[in-house]
C-alpha cells in the first residue's frame, strides 16, 4: 500500500492501461502539453507522445463524437471533458450516440469509451459548478461511475477502460488532492457494486463522490455522542445496485441520502423511491435527502458558502431524524 492522492491514483490507472493495451488513447482539451486542467494527465504526453495523448481543438461535441467513432473503429478512447459543465456541449453524442449505438445497431457495434470529467465547485459560479450525474444516471446504455476515494478511483477507472460499454466516469475537482491508501500492485474494482465505508446501527447515510467525505466527518462527530451511522458509498450510479443499501436499512430503519446536486429529480429521489417500495416495512421514518439549495451556484464566497450541505448540516439532520 502507498498513500496516494486521488489525482495520482487516476493518473496511475490511465498510465497502467496505456501500457497494458495499445488501443487506449486519451483525447481532450489541454490534456497533452499542459497535462490537464487539474493536472491529472501530467507527464503522460512526455511518456506516450502526441499520437496517444491528444490535445484537441475546443469542440466537446467533436471530442466525444470522434471518441465514439474511434471506439467503434477498434480503439479504447478515454476522452476528457475539462469539467462536467462542458458535457452540455456534447450531449447529443453522449445521449443519442454513445449510450444507444450498441442497442440501435442490434449489438453489431460496441462503444468501449470512457468519458472522464470532474464535477466540483469553488467560486466557479453558475455555469461551472454543476453536478449533472443524475442526468447521466437517467440513461439506459450508459454506466455512470462516481468514485469518492483514490482506491476506488483507480480500480474503477481500470475496469471502465476495459469495459465494452460507454462509461461516464465523474471525478471531483475538490477530491483530486484527497489522499488514501492504494495498493502498489495491479487490482481492479468492479462497476455497479456499492461499498460500506463505515459500519453503524443507528442510521444509514447513502452517498457518493465528495459527499462521502462530508458524511464520514459527520459520522465521526455523531459517534462521539453515541450515534453510529452506516455509510453506503454507491460508487456507481448506473446500474444502481441497492442491495447494500437495503441490508443497511433493514438494520438501521432510517436513511438519509446525501448528494451535492440539486435534490429535485436527483439521485436521492430515486433511492428514496426504491427504499420506500422495497423496504417500506422496515422504515421508522421517511427517507430524507440533503443536497444543494435550488438556485444556480453564485460566485460570491459568502453566498456560495450557503449552497452545499456541510458536516454541520448533516449532523443536525441526523439528530432530527433520530429524535
Amino acid at each position, binding site marked *: 500500500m502507498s498513500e496516494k492522492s486521488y489525482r495520482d491514483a487516476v493518473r496511475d490507472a490511465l498510465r497502467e492501461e496505456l501500457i497494458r493495451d495499445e488501443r487506449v488513447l486519451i483525447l481532450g*482539451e*489541454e490534456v497533452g*502539453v*499542459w497535462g490537464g486542467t487539474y493536472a491529472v494527465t501530467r507527464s503522460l504526453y512526455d511518456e506516450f507522445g502526441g499520437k496517444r495523448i491528444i*490535445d*484537441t*481543438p*475546443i*469542440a466537446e*461535441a*467533436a471530442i466525444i463524437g470522434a471518441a465514439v467513432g474511434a471506439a467503434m473503429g477498434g480503439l479504447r478512447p478515454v476522452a476528457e471533458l475539462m469539467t462536467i*459543465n*462542458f458535457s*452540455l*456541449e456534447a450531449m447529443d453524442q453522449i445521449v443519442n450516440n454513445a449510450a444507444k449505438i450498441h442497442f440501435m445497431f442490434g449489438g453489431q457495434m460496441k462503444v468501449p469509451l470512457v468519458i472522464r470529467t470532474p464535477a466540483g465547485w469553488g*467560486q*466557479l*459560479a*453558475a*455555469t*461551472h459548478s454543476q453536478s449533472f450525474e443524475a442526468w447521466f444516471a437517467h440513461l439506459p446504455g450508459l454506466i455512470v461511475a462516481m468514485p469518492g476515494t483514490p482506491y476506488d478511483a483507480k480500480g474503477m477507472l481500470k475496469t471502465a477502460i476495459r469495459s465494452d460499454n460507454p462509461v461516464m466516469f465523474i471525478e471531483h475537482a475538490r477530491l483530486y488532492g484527497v489522499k488514501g491508501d492504494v495498493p502498489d500492485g495491479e487490482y481492479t474494482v468492479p462497476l455497479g457494486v456499492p461499498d460500506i465505508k463505515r459500519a453503524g446501527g443507528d442510521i444509514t447515510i447513502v452517498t457518493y463522490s465528495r459527499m462521502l467525505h462530508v458524511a464520514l466527518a459527520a459520522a465521526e462527530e455523531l459517534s462521539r455522542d453515541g450515534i453510529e451511522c452506516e455509510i453506503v458509498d454507491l460508487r456507481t450510479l448506473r446500474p444502481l445496485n441497492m442491495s447494500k443499501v437495503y441490508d443497511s436499512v433493514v438494520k438501521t430503519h432510517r436513511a438519509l441520502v446525501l448528494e451535492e446536486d440539486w435534490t429535485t429529480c436527483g439521485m436521492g429521489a430515486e433511492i428514496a423511491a426504491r427504499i420506500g417500495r422495497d423496504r417500506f416495512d422496515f422504515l421508522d421514518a421517511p427517507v430524507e435527502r440533503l443536497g444543494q*439549495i*435550488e*438556485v*444556480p451556484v*453564485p*460566485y*460570491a*464566497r*459568502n*453566498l456560495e458558502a*450557503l449552497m452545499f450541505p456541510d458536516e454541520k448540516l448533516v449532523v443536525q439532520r441526523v439528530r432530527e431524524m433520530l429524535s
Partner: protein
Amino acid sequence: MDSMISVIRPDGTADPEQDPGLPEEDLLLLYRKMALLRAFDEKAIALQRAGRIGFFVPSAGQEACSVGAGHALRDGDWIFPSYRDHGMALMRGCPLETLLGQIYGNAADPTRGRQMPSHWCDRSIRLVSVSSPVATQLPQAVGAAYAAKLRGEKVASIASFGDGGTSTGEFHAAMNFAGVFETPTVFFCENNQYAISVPVSRQTAASSLAVKAQAYGFRGIRVDGNDVLAVRKVVGDALARARDGKGPTLIEALTYRIGPHSTSDDPTIYRSAEEVAAWREKDPIRRFAAFLSGRGLMDDASIDAAAAEAKEAVRKAVEVVEAAPPVPFESLFEDVYAELPWHLAEARDALLAGKE
C-alpha cells in the same frame, strides 16, 4: 484574406491609404483608455496574488483590439464580448467601479456576485455578459442583430472571441446563420495565438481564420491587432456596413496575449521567453505612443503622466469597491425567475430560520 491591414507603419507614421483620420481628441482618448486598461490589468493581477480577488482574465497585449473596436461602436449597438474585452465596456462609458465590482462580486457588482470575474454585463450600454462556455455568445449576437433588423433599428452587434472559439460548433453555426439571414453582425476574432496552452495551429489547418468567412458567404478581413488605428478602421467600416444593411463581416485581429491565460495559468510551460519578448516589442501601447509622439501629440512627460493618471484612477476604484459590503444573503434566491416564486421564498425563510 491572408494579408493584413495595418495603419501605423514601422517608422511610426500612418499609412495615408488606411488612416481612419480620427480627430486629435479621439486619438488621445484611445491612448488614455489603453493605458487605463493596462493599469487595470496590472492591479487586478496584483490583487489576485494578494488574495483580495479570486480570479482575473488579463488582456495585456490586446488593448488595441478592445479599445479600437470599442471606439467604433455607437449608441444602440449590441456588445457580446469575450472575457478579455472589458476595453469595449470602458470605451462605451462603463465606469471602472462597475468592472471592478464584478470582479469582487460584492454589492458594487450590478450582477450581484453571480458570475466568475471578467463576466461583465451592463444593460445601459447593451453589453451582454459572456457565458463561461466558449463561444456561446456568438449565436446570441446574431439573434440580437436579427431582432434589431426586424425592429427597424439601424444598429449592429459585435461578438468577440478568441482563436480557440473558432473551433466550436457555435462559431460555425452562428456564422452560417448570420450569412443566411444577412444580420448586421461583426464577428471579431482576437487571434492571440493560444487557447490556454494550445497554439492556434491546433485549432485550424486553414491559412487564416479570416478565410472561414468565405464558406458562409461574407467578407473576412485580417487586421493588425496591435495597431489600434487599424482595428478602429476595420471594425468601424464593418459596423457601418452592417448598420447599412450590407450584412456580416468576420474580422481576424492578429495579436498576442502577453500575460497568462488567467490568474490560474503558467504560460512558461508552453511558450518560450524569446517568443514573448518578440511580441513585447510590438506592444500596442508603445506603438501607439510612438505614433502620437511623431504627430507631436504626446511626449515622454505626457506619456508618463497618462500612466500615472491611469494608476491613480484604478487605485481609487479599488478603494470604492473594497468599501462595498458583501452581497446580501437574501439575494441568493432572487432573480432565479422573473419574480420570486413561493417555493424560493420558502427556501429562503427556512435557511434564515436555520441560521438563527
